[in-house]
């Protein structure tokens, strides 16, 4: 039964949906903090805000990596063609979402948040 969970077509959209939610959280969180309590620009990128955003990024990356692994694993187990297709493409999409999170999230390490 657990097999069905990872070969279900819904996996095709979960990864990038998580990416979107993460993206909105990053952009929303940044905008709200910058509007309400912006850190001192002198601090550069070493602010609590950046740390928080980086942490969120790491958690999301780890979660997506786990999902990608699960789907890949399921794709190797299943014998049904349609299920294999869904699982392997989903695994790729989870991986792509993970890379997208990393790629978009990296600037948090080097840029002042609110300038």
């Amino acid at each position, binding site marked *: 039964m657990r097999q069905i969970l990872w070969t279900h077509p819904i996996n095709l959209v979960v990864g990038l949906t998580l990416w979107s939610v993460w*993206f909105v959280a990053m952009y929303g969180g940044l905008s709200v903090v910058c509007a309400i309590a912006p850190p001192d620009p002198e601090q550069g990128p070493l602010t609590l805000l950046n740390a928080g955003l980086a942490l969120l990024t790491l958690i999301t990356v780890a979660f997506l990596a786990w999902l990608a692994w699960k789907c890949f694993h399921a794709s190797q187990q299943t014998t049904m063609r*349609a299920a294999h297709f869904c699982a392997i493409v989903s695994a790729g999409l989870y991986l792509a979402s993970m890379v997208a999170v990393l790629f978009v999230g990296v600037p948090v390490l080097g840029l002042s948040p609110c300038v």
Partner: protein
Amino acid sequence: MNDSSQDSSRKTAPEDTRRFLEDLERVWANPRGLGALTIVNHTTVGLRFMLTGMAFFLVGGVLAMLIRSQLAFPGQNFMAPEIYNQVVTMHGTVMMFLFAIPILEGLAIYMIPKMIGARDLVCPRLSAFGYWCYLFGGLILLSSLFMEMAPSSGWFMYTPLSSKVYSPGLGSDFWLLGITFVEISALSAGVELVVSILRTRTQGMALHKMPLFAWYILAMAMMIVVGFPPLILGSVLLELERAVGMPFFDVAGGGDPILWQHLFWLFGHPEVYIIFLPGAGIVSTLIPVFAGRPIVGYGWAVFAVITTGFISFGLWVHHMFTVGMPQLAQTFFSAASMLVAVPTGIQIFLWLATLWLGKPRLQVPMLWIFGFLFVFVLGGLTGVMLALVPFNWQVHDTHFVVAHMHYVLVGGMFFPLIGGLYYWLPLFSGRMPSQTLGKWGFWLTFLGFNGTFLIMHWTGLLGMPRRVYTYGADEGWQLFNLISSVSSFLMAMGIAMILVDIMLHFRFGKPARQNPWNADTLEWATSMPPSPYNFVSLPKVETRHPLWEYPQLPRTIAEGRHGLAAAFHGRREIWGTDPLTGKLREVIHIPTNSWWPLFAALALAVVCISLLLRWYPLAGIAVLVAAGFLLRWSWENGAHPRAAPDTREQPGNPPLHSRTLDGPGVWTMAVALLANGAFFLSLLFGWFYLWTISPEWSMPPESPLSLTLLVLAGLASSAGWLWLERCVRRLRRRQGAGLAKGLYMISALGAVQLGLLVWVLVLAELDVTATAHDAVLMVSLVYVMLHTGFGAVLTLLQGLRVGYGYVGVEAPLEPVVVRLLWRYNLGVYWIVVVSLAVLPRMIGGTT
């Protein structure tokens, strides 16, 4: 594919076959004369969409020629500035909203059922309704141009320029109301394409066996469903600001003009991909056919389509890099914008690999695909440049952007579309296009296009801003503008030549043989031109290339040797299949020709016009009439005798969908609620955005909404929902006793909630023209009240239908559909209560 035993079992006597074909013709017949207005068949509706789109394209093209005439020389007085601004605005609006999207929807509506082996879309009346909305909305919008009161604030309508103060005429109202009207058609097409692709593929066509074009259209349709609602919300808010004075975008009243830009581009960027994806779908269909081999990397293509669809929602701010937001936020969007290059790159290279590994033939459709490759790749590359923030700050809002945008849109959409048009011409007409005129048309268009827009990058780099009606002779821009203008007329000649070619071919084209390009997909298994029912019988398809592997398929289909080869019952039938595996689940009987879509659209047109003229009483009456028409339309559904005149089922076939609990209606409702949810989330975004970012936001220290009453109303709604869940559970166990009474009581609970909400509204004494806070509260409450009322009315009608016997243990589908709405309403309601009434109490308001 068909196993032969099944085939032989279906062999019937010739006279039976003849009677079956007569039945089929009768059941699917398109009326002539005035009755043609009632046609709902996807082939006709798709063609209507495409022809109307072409007509609007010509209008948009003439406007483009006017623009290029004005800019050909510096300091020209060909058009007055106000007229020029109207022309520029309308060129963008017509091309985007009245040409690009509708014509692609039309192509999808026409093609998708044929490609997935269905006889029609799953909600044919909805497609007809969408077409009428598109036609009326487009005509209303276009009429403004002839009255010289067209919108003139640019096609993205930035406020405050488009506000009552700075655009006092009716122009902005024409845009906001007309476009919203047109968008109803986009949404209805989006919803039904999603459901059709997921649920009505022919037997055996598993998710990974459907043609790539269907994947592209699925992604496009999903993007329409999620991407259009933000603009609809924005248009509603801006129109409310203009008509009533609710200050959503007015800084003095606590609003913010930047909110409009967010809402517009939340739609506007995905829109570019909504236009590009079907174009890419055409490319992915044509390249394998002309390369004579399957596409390389089907899974990669699906991966790229899904990735593009999602990531394109994370880029909207790259149109707003100059509005002054933190650099880090800009970098997020910059990186995301560039990321979209990856799925696009994957697609381009898998097309190249397919050509490389195949034996490509260079025929006219392929010329256009090559034009696409050059133009679109160039546009994509300048797109990557524009995603880089510092470079964007320089060229934003210059002719560089104009050039880029035309490369992407004309390259990504127009070139593949014309390629596809040439490719599918034999299907539309049964005749082949000419080779010579077609080649001339291509080269003139291609050279004219590049001459117009390649040089425009340079004009932009030399500093020419977009949308200026003239420029000085001392700016150094004149030569380049002249080259652009001359080339644009070359392009116009090319397009004229294509039109001539297409018109002539209907008369002089050589008759086409079956499957003239040796294609692999099912649309070529229909007759040319196709009959309204596409397929006499629906084959079982378990391959991506049915016509390559089973060339005899067109014949066996026409001989009625596959599924659903019976029509004596008078139902229009298609298969309902499992979304993943394509296994048969039910027989879907779809509605037939009807006046209701046209009448409902006409009533909405009256709403639109009376809002435009500020005749609010008439608008109110027309809204009620439209609602009446729509509900009347919904009445003839499911187990209503008009919908299913004969309930006999064929032995061996799955049950009729109206006798199941998971018919397409549930899916349609779910996808429609997805669109609704996108609308609601945009509204929620607006609320929090204004609360945190708007410079002059003011909020009373104590929320004006009575929490007690809100909670009471919520309890009524929750009780209704629980009861409805119980009704459905009992239906599932085939227990129908007390169903009608239950439904009436649930409806009454909805009415109680509505009454309490009206009370909340009265007590709140909102001053909607004074502050954006009160205005948002009003809109949110009205949104919730409309949904509550809608839920109550639908439940009431369900109760009535139980009495008529249209709903019950034998036909349990509809309460399941209504249950989805109740779930949605309840979720939204509590989110509204928390966001609008609880959070402000916790965080505290400011004045």
